[in-house]
């Protein structure tokens, strides 16, 4: 790879993205997912591209 090339990044599916966001929210709230059975993850995200 030359210095002008950038490494290819893996893509992530909507399902896996939802899972990672949800897991992070659970960590942030410091609770087990089981106690949040009736709680919905927020649905609107827009992600800056750097």
């Amino acid at each position, binding site marked *: 790879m030359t210095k002008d090339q950038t490494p290819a990044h893996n893509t992530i599916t*909507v*399902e896996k993205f*939802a899972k990672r966001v949800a897991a*992070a929210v659970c960590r942030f709230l410091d609770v087990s*997912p089981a106690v949040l059975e009736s709680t*919905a993850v*927020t649905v609107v*995200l827009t*992600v800056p591209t750097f």
Partner: protein
Amino acid sequence: MDLFIDGNISQMFSPEGAARFFARLIGVDPRSLRPTVSQERLHAFFITSSAVQSARPYLAINGRPLDYAITQAGTVVPQRMWTLGIPSGAQHFADTSLNMPVFFVHNHGTTLGLPLLRAVVNGSRATLVGAGDTAPIGNGSTMYIRINVGILTFKDSRVSLRDCVLKGFF
């Protein structure tokens, strides 16, 4: 249905804020947007103009909803536009391109939102629209995501919002 009145983003950011957001996201005058509204129970706003679609080709706007009309079904935690809070950060943010909004939509087509338990433990492939599609989050290997997390207090039905910072490796 009006994108700047009935949309979730307009409700969160105000109509003027939504116009600024869409202008930054898509790179065209938001007044030129003529979204098509889907007639399903959960109304989605789509951009079908080829001129708008070609303004930011990497967004792959075609077929992706720009917003959904507000509905009483499901749970939407309001979000805010975020900046670093310092002058240099504001400039950096202004120069940063955005990706399309990500919506988690139940495939029965009536609600926005995804239960945390299902997302984390059970998986959402069977219930989430486009579960196997590539998430429109850019191609960076590391990403910081800031979202408001709503915590519903059942005693008084208030929702308190806390700023949650997520760092992800993709």
